[in-house]
């Protein structure tokens, strides 16, 4: 029997055939007596081998579960218990206070009104008898004793408790004079001031994308890009999907081949991605400027502006760490070619230069991946487009400025 047919038969015994192979085996068994016989014997061997399987001890699973480490006890939430205790005490105190105040006020009112008697004045007269007529008669046992009648021959002042003896007036002491400070006009000259440290404060470049239509803004952006060894640009887009579309279009027009991760584009479509990252390390500062200007121009020509503002700043170690996580390898943002010195012009260089200028230049590669949320990032090993980019990126040129472009919504993300 042919080897390929034998392979088919043994694979059929293994139970791992494709649909097409299964059909072939079926046909073979129908047509060949030899194949049927061999298949039966191989199947018999398989059954006999399977019979060699031994059952594990009956309590094996229980033995393992019994030896699993016990989970740690959950920490007691002391703070929560204490705060709840204070809450109960506070509530109880509030209720007691409310009841106390309420009963005090009520007893005062009840005492004065229920007795049917108004408190008498110092002269013992009732202020308005007509009010007394409408008041209910006294029924309560609680009664306020009437104020004692003052004899007409005594002055009210005599009834008042004696006033405390007056304290003699104290003489205010004058505060001591303030210590006299150094008189700056007659003081000796100050010591010479040591030279100050020079500190360069860099302010990130922030501009509206629409302002890139102006030449001075373009120049400012180019200056910023030229100054830094590696750049991060945050592009704020009101509509992310549309923003990415316009970005890709502008990149293509400026000779940049964006390898967009398919999973990222899918997430953007489903609005599962809040920010995407475009990374390129073969662009010169002028290329990046041209790309931004193209985006600005396209944006101006669109019906509704998509891009809001642009924020360019020097890439930080944190950016490198994030990039490493996204692309799965250390990008070496600040690495430069060892031999960046210009080489002397040799014979034939002119010809090569002419050839290279006249030939169509290959697009500069860039890669587009999910940036945030971090949990939604495509695993570097799973992205075909990232692999393509990494294969094409080649060596970094001395003039190249590695750039991270984050396309994100204006609020957060």
């Amino acid at each position, binding site marked *: 029997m042919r080897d390929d047919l*034998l*392979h088919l038969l*043994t*694979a059929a*015994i*293994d139970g*791992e055939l494709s649909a097409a192979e299964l059909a072939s085996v079926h046909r073979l068994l129908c047509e060949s007596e030899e194949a049927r016989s*061999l298949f*039966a*014997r*191989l*199947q*018999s*061997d*398989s*059954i*006999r*081998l*399977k*019979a*060699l*399987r*031994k*059952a*594990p*001890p009956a309590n*094996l*699973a229980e*033995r*393992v*579960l019994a*030896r*699993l*480490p016990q*989970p740690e006890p959950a920490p007691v939430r002391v703070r929560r218990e204490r705060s709840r205790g204070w809450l109960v005490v506070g509530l109880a105190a509030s209720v007691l206070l409310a009841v106390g105040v309420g009963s005090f006020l009520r007893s005062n009112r009840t005492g004065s009104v229920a007795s049917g008697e108004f408190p008498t004045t110092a002269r013992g007269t009732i202020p308005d008898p007509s009010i007394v007529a409408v008041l209910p008669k006294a029924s309560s046992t609680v009664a306020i004793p009437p104020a004692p009648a003052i004899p007409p021959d005594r002055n009210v002042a005599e009834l008042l408790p004696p006033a405390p003896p007056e304290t003699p007036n104290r003489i205010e002491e004058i505060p001591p004079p303030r210590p006299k400070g150094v008189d700056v006009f007659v003081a000796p000259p100050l010591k010479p001031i040591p030279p100050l440290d020079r500190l360069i404060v860099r302010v990130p470049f922030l501009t509206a994308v629409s302002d890139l239509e102006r030449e001075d803004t373009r120049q400012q952006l180019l200056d910023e890009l030229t100054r830094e060894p590696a750049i991060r640009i945050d592009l704020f887009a009101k509509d992310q999907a549309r923003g990415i579309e316009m970005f890709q279009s502008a990149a293509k027009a400026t000779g940049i081949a964006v390898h967009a991760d398919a999973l990222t584009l899918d997430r953007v479509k489903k609005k599962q991605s809040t920010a995407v990252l475009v990374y390129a390390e073969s662009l010169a500062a002028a290329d990046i400027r041209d790309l931004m200007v193209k985006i600005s121009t396209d944006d101006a020509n669109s019906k509704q502006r998509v891009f809001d503002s642009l924020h360019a700043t020097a890439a930080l170690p944190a950016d490198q760490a994030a990039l490493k996580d996204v692309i799965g390898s250390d990008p070496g943002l600040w690495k430069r070619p060892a031999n960046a010195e210009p080489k002397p012009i040799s014979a034939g260089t002119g010809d090569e230069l002419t050839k290279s200028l006249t030939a169509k230049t290959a697009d500069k590669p860039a890669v587009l991946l999910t940036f945030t949320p971090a949990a939604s990032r495509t695993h570097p090993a799973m992205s075909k487009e990232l692999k393509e980019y990494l294969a094409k990126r080649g060596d970094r040129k001395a003039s190249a400025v590695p750039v991270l472009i984050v396309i994100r919504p204006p609020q957060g993300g």
Partner: protein
Amino acid sequence: MNDDDRRLIAECLHGNRDAFGQLITRYQSRLYNAALRLVDTPDDAADVVQDAFLNAFQSLRSFKGDSEFFTWMYRIAFNVAVSQKRRKKPTSSLNAMELGRNGLSREPVDASDYVKPGVALERSEEERRLYAALGRLSAEHRDVLVMKEIDGLKYEEIADVLKIPIGTVRSRLNRARLELRELLEPLDENRPPLIDEPE
């Protein structure tokens, strides 16, 4: 990795010990059979499986799901078995040391159960016949056949464990089955047919 395993592992990581119990139930038989071939006695095999599951439970967080859960367990069990063998390894005899000193190399021996006479005595006639035939296969053919038939691994699991392409697994299994048939053919002449054996 299949969805059931993924779910059970996630539940284990959230503290559900019953989920781990389900994983044990699911894989203990296959692991036990694999361990039986790596150690000397059934008790040792049970210990290997037990320790393998305990190790797996403690390092479950490090399991990323890149391979099948069983493949991962298989590797752990293999390492546990090797460690157990090392612990139980008898010290070399003086004679053996003397042989070594004299520069007389000993023949490499196949330490697997298939060729151990003492172990073979405990088996039935049918088992002995099969083990004898398996013992005569080359190691690479025997491994794939045992993994497939006794351990119940799939092509891709065997490929993962042995670090070989799936095509190689398929090809080795083909040759192993045909070789085994040739070896069993003369032995089967006097063997009574099995009841459930297909005609």
